[in-house]
């Protein structure tokens, strides 16, 4: 049992990841959160749901994690003026999540200190809530222009630089408001929600299988992680386990996604410090990997290869040899390039000390994923809660304490090499076997399932609720960027503005995965 509290009765959930679920009352939320926080636990996700079809009002769901597993707390809320205690004093990462729950469902965090809108700009009116089942899109349209109360910094010589939503490069849209003195950043405030395209609402009209496709497009660079987390949540509700070979193949795909992203980002990090040599070299390696993906699995970014119940792509003996040769090539080339990055004085001068997030601050903010591990936050779902086949792979976690761009680069290199090792192990263990999927046509009624996977950026979680007929009634995908974007506001402080693109790239957080 992961948490002990007199009013908390936890039931274990089925599935690949250790998780418990419990109903709690309004008054128990803060003490339980505090209890988990005091024990070194973190907030994973927070979302709301409309429960009118079940004869209730609304519900708030909070997923916490500690060293024993995930705890999903559900809190029933009234139909009129639903509200819950503000938990952002305990978990600062909850701030934006709570504001989003208000924007989408009208569930209010009472006693909170920040009630500004977050994901809502001007597409729908204040006071109308898209994720309520009685939401009327036509009636809620708004032609107002967006306004947002940024925090103003005043003083002699302070001025603002607004950046975005359209950036200078090929990047997703978001707004950064810098308050600066000279070249130094005094304050950075983010404003997101530009790519909000109604993904969560869209899930509610999709079948289980169509939902898998959509899950794979929450954030295009983490397609495998989302598709797996979605499948894991569905399999948890249906209480089925995919065939062994399917699980091994999923891990192979996930590690290939990790390597592809690290290769791309290591190239761009070189580019951002004017080492275009690194950009070109890593770009070549990434392209070779993507071409192998297309040839072996039918898609360069491995989209739609994971479905609830299993996988859709197999690997032939010849394909195995192709990957073995590729892994050997990558191992050799990346070692060589790492040596060049390590010994390049200009590169190291820009990397070291830039965008530092101290371990203490990282712990406070709940920083997760590779950025967390570069600031001594030793969390990796593959290590703490190894679902099959990671339970047989003994993943070595990469951690570092410095928390700067250099540390995030080191963690990326270390994870890349570990990922190559894991792929070799997977190829050895990939036994011929028992089919690629257990058909999963429909889910049981009134279910709740959670899946969590360590994507390349960090922990990707998907929660699925089914209605009385077993249809998707609420799907909540959660990106690690929710936790890590606020840390970037701190990482930029005291740095010069021209270092911001470098610092930003070293995190490379998702806009689409956050804006939903």
């Amino acid at each position, binding site marked *: 049992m992961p948490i002990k509290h007199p009013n908390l009765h936890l039931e274990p959930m089925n599935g690949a990841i250790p998780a418990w679920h419990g109903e709690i009352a309004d008054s128990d939320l803060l003490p339980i959160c505090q209890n988990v926080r005091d024990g070194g636990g973190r907030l994973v996700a927070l979302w709301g749901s409309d429960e009118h079809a079940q004869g209730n009002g609304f519900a708030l769901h909070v997923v916490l994690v500690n060293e024993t597993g995930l705890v999903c707390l559900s809190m029933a809320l009234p139909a009129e003026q639903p509200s819950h205690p503000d938990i952002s004093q305990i978990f600062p990462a909850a701030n934006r999540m709570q504001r989003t729950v208000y924007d989408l469902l009208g569930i209010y965090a009472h006693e909170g200190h920040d009630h500004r809108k977050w994901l809502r*700009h001007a597409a729908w009116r204040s006071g109308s809530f898209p994720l309520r089942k009685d939401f009327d899109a036509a009636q809620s349209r708004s032609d107002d222009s967006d306004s947002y109360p940024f925090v103003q910094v005043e003083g002699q010589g302070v001025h603002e630089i607004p950046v975005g939503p359209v950036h200078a490069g*090929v990047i997703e*849209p978001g707004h950064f408001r810098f308050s600066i003195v000279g070249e130094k950043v005094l304050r950075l405030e983010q404003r997101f929600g*530009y*790519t909000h*395209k109604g993904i969560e609402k869209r899930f509610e009209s999709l079948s289980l299988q169509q939902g898998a496709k959509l899950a794979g497009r929450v954030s295009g660079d983490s397609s495998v992680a989302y598709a797996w987390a979605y499948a894991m949540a569905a399999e948890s509700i249906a209480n089925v386990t995919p065939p062994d070979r399917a699980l091994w193949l999923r891990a192979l795909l996930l590690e290939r996604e990790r390597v592809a992203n690290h290769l791309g980002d290591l190239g761009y990090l070189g580019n951002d410090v004017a080492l275009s040599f690194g950009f*070109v070299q890593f770009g070549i390696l990434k392209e070779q990997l993507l071409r192998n993906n297309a040839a072996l699995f039918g898609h360069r*970014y491995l989209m739609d290869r994971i479905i609830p119940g299993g996988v859709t792509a197999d690997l032939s003996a010849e394909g195995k040899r192709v990957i073995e040769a590729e892994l050997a090539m990558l191992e050799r080339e990346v070692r060589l390039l790492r040596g060049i990055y390590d010994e390049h004085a200009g590169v190291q001068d820009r990397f070291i000390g830039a965008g530092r997030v101290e371990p203490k601050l990282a712990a406070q903010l709940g920083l997760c994923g590779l950025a967390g591990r570069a600031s001594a936050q030793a969390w990796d779902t593959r290590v703490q809660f190894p679902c099959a086949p990671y339970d047989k792979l003994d993943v070595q976690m990469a951690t570092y304490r410095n928390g700067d761009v250099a540390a995030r680069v080191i963690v990326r290199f270390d994870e890349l090499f570990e990922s190559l090792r894991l792929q070799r192990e997977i190829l050895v263990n990939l036994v011929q076997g028992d089919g690629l999927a257990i058909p999963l046509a429909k889910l049981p009624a009134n279910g709740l399932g959670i899946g969590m996977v360590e994507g390349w950026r960090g922990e990707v979680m998907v929660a699925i609720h089914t209605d009385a007929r077993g249809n998707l009634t609420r799907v909540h995908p959660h990106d690690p960027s929710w936790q890590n974007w606020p840390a970037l506001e701190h990482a930029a402080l005291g740095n010069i503005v021209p270092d911001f693109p470098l610092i930003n790239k070293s995190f490379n957080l998702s*806009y689409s995965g956050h804006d939903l």
Partner: protein
Amino acid sequence: MYRIIKQIIKTGIKTEASPQPDEAMRVIPQRLQQQILEVFGRALTIRHVDAGSCNGCELEIHAINNAYYNINGLGIKFVASPRHADLLLVTGPVSRHMEVALKRTYDAMPEPKLVVAVGDCGCNGGIFSPENSLGGESYASCGKIANVIPVDVAIPGCPPTPVALMQGILAATSVCKKSEET
């Protein structure tokens, strides 16, 4: 420095021949260079706007800059400002929250300007859009790019491959040529 130079020599030239033109698009690589010179003078410049994509299309737009596709080698490059751009490369669906920014970016471009819509979502709203809505509209999405700004060429795919992207970008310049002739 020695290791960098050695690696560059060892790597050699990876750039492949530019993709064969799609017959429907009526472009051939040789004429293309000529067309770009005629229409745009030395180079075609592209401004990219993500108007609400999942970032999948962006990955492939990055890829056309890598050594294999080397779109720079065709005289085509990405620029930071719409005021410097001949062609707007847009991924979508257009979220309602990006509608104004997309229109303003388009308005900031000098004439003559071209628009290329990228990906299934940019072409028709894609997976993010309700099936029963024309062009893929919802409370949060305006659907396809053409619902917001005029589109010259639409490149389908989820995401489109780098070759398809290059074929589409090249086809756009040929559309411009055609409209000038007629």
